[in-house]
């Protein structure tokens, strides 16, 4: 009885949240001087061609990986804002590997090594944030943001310094890699099946580890109550470090994919803010790990579709960010509201 009532309340709250979000977004669109219908049509047009849809998929893969990584840190009760830096360090490590190996070993090996380097780069950067958090008592939010700046700075230094294109150093990045070390794509589009497979694999493994292993259970316990977990005998601090490293590793793969499948070089904005977007996804899905897939797809579609807004409606494409942000905001508000009572 009581359970049923709780469920009804829960569902009505969720439904109410969606309606509120929708109304809020409508209001914003009106204020921006457009009609919601036009915006919706433009967004749809922005993803309807095969090329555009492929771009949605190519954004989806790194986004999924980052969101999966963040599941680990969220479970451990951490806001890993350093995910951006972890993507960047993954990308830098991949670029480093490819620069060395692309000419001396077979390309599939070079790609594999690139990804492994990316994993290592991201994981180390994540671990660094973890060490600052656990041993330096630095709040993980500040540790992460600080390390993001360092990673960003390092990228700029490399792009304009040691790794600059022969002749001209520019914001457009390092020299492109040979096409043989690009990840193969579907037809002539940007979607790479390998990237997608890696991402879906990441999601499945994440769900299994969190729900089915002692490690996942321990992470949940540490996230809920560090002290009690420690008293119960869980090596709490090493679990926190583990969460940071795993999150960094998954972010590192995302960085690798940005280099190998999307840009084929290192560019200053290599992370494309996918890490922050993944944070929004993480907050939105809470404990429902498998919800990451549809939500990430939706966010990715919004991102790509919004590129159409300036073309057909003379609206800023950042409207997509407003929609994503307000959705998260309302869901978090609803959750807080639910917890108060």
């Amino acid at each position, binding site marked *: 009885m009581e359970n049923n009532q709780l469920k009804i309340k829960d569902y009505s709250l969720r439904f109410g949240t969606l309606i509120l979000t929708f109304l809020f977004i409508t209001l914003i669109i009106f204020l921006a001087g457009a009609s919601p219908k036009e915006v919706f049509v433009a967004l749809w047009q922005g993803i309807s061609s095969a090329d555009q849809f492929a771009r949605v998929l190519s954004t989806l893969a790194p986004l999924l990986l980052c969101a999966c990584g963040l599941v680990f840190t969220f479970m451990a009760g951490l806001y890993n804002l350093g995910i951006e830096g972890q993507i960047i360090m993954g990308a830098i490590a991949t670029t480093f590997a490819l620069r060395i190996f692309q000419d001396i070993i077979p390309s599939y090996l070079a790609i594999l090594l690139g990804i492994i380097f990316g994993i290592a780069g991201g994981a180390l950067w994540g671990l660094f944030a973890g060490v600052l958090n656990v041993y330096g008592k630095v709040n993980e939010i500040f540790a992460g943001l600080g390390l993001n700046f360092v990673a960003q700075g390092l990228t700029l230094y490399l792009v304009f310094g040691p790794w600059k294109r022969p002749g001209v150093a520019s914001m457009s990045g390092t020299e492109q890699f040979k096409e043989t070390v690009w990840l193969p794509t579907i037809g002539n589009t940007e979607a790479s099946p390998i990237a997608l497979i890696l991402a879906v694999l990441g999601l499945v493994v994440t769900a299994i580890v969190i729900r*089915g*292993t*002692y*490690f996942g*259970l*321990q992470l*949940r*316990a540490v996230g*809920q*109550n560090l*002290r*009690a*977990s*420690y*008293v*119960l*005998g*869980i*090596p709490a601090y090493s679990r926190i470090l583990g969460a940071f490293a795993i999150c960094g590793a998954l972010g590192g793969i995302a960085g690798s994919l940005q280099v190998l499948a999307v840009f084929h070089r290192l560019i200053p904005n290599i992370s494309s803010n996918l890490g922050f977007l993944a944070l929004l996804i993480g907050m939105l899905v809470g404990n429902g790990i498998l919800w990451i897939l549809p939500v990430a797809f939706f966010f990715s579609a919004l991102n790509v579709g919004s590129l159409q807004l300036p073309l057909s409606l003379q609206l800023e494409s950042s409207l997509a960010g407003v929609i994503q942000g307000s959705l998260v905001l309302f869901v978090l508000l609803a959750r807080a509201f639910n917890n108060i009572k």
Partner: protein
Amino acid sequence: MKIELRNITKRFGNVLANDDVSVTVEAGTIHGILGENGAGKSTLVKIISGFIGRDRGTIILDEKPGEIKTPAAAIRAGIGMLHQDPLDFPTLSVLDNFMIGREGGKDKTSSIVLPKKLATKELKYLASDFNFSLDVNEILGNLTVGERQQLEILRLLSLGVNTLIFDEPTTGISASQKDALFAAMRKLADSGKSLIFVSHKLEDVAVLCDRVTVMRQGKVVGEAEIPCPENRLVEMMFGRELASPNKPKTATAEVALQLHNIILKTDRLTIEIEKLTIQSGEVIGLAGLEGSGQRLLLLMCAGLLPATSGNLIINGQDMTNQTYQNYLKAGVGFLPADRLKEGLVNGLTIQDHVALRQSIGRRSFVNWKETLTVTKDKISLFNIRGKADSKVERLSGGNQQRTQLALLPIPLNLLLMEHPTRGLDIESAIWVWQQLIARCQTGTTILFTSSDLDEIVQYSDRILVFSGGNVSAPIDTKELTVNKLGQMIGGKFEDGGLGTGD
């Protein structure tokens, strides 16, 4: 200023913290308020100083009704309070702290621009008047607790208070600082100010106060002029005959726990134990007011707090400086009082907890089916009213305690418990102790704290009394009288206790 409290009543949930309390403090006197922890002393003085509101009752200041709703209002009415933990700002300088709390813009001494020169002069003048030596530019965090108290007294005086309340001021300060404090308090009283001295220490009250009100369980149980025989105060404080011991003998000849030259230092307390040996199967009760060091000893024996120096030996194995994991392997269990903060994980189910306990040393997949069977067994064995998928925060206090017991490691050589039956109904409490004694019969050694003296006397073989970090030599429960216990809790040890002697 004369302060009269009439029929003050304050309720927190189910607990009647102050029940119809009436006290009169004459101007120019030091009035003691004496009582055990939880007697309602702190609640009473927090009401006088405006930190919490009262449900009923009146406060009369110099024959006029006083409305005190906030600490600021209390200070305007001339009442200032020194809290047990100084409420000051450790990162600011002594002078900054001295000036805090003034209403800016009123007059010369508290203009909008900080009157640093004037304040420095005032602080120096006041300090020399009381023989306190305070460096005005020192950062407050570098000062001792005693010096911070001194500053707080001067600050309150500069705000013009004529009534000062001291909440347990002698905890955590040195002997010489205590002398200086008492001299200052006497001086203040002689100059016509009223002082309220809250304490659980009989000795301090006997030395300092003119009159004392004794509280127990939220009520005033008596008043006395000082000097007065100590026995009378002890009787009022504890007020009853102790329960008779009724525990079967479980101690064996084997040694379970040995402490050698242990020194355990924290900010507030220093515990010294030269030598202590506890037999296997024995139950040791740690008596004393809360915060006198019992918890520190438990945490140290559990491997959760390293000793500053000395050796800790469990079952012949030197455990000094070992990791907590090794303590667990050695069969040491800790049952904290704050179950949802230290013992159990909010949001996880009973089954999750059972799995967590199994997880130590394993990294692989959880066998949820097997865990479910184990959990169900434990639920029926420990009589937990809850299901495997019940989240622990939804369980009642008694069932949380049963869950904690169900999670203890097996074999269990040494069990350390804080308030094992706090918040439990009588039936559950008796059940818990039956389980515990059964464990003792299989060789488990127990150390436990309790604020319930009856529980300590009923279930302990020997008792250690703690008072402000001093530890008594173990006393056989059968030799204990309420008078002796009360005096020791109040800080009077016949022998030097377990310390190395200072």
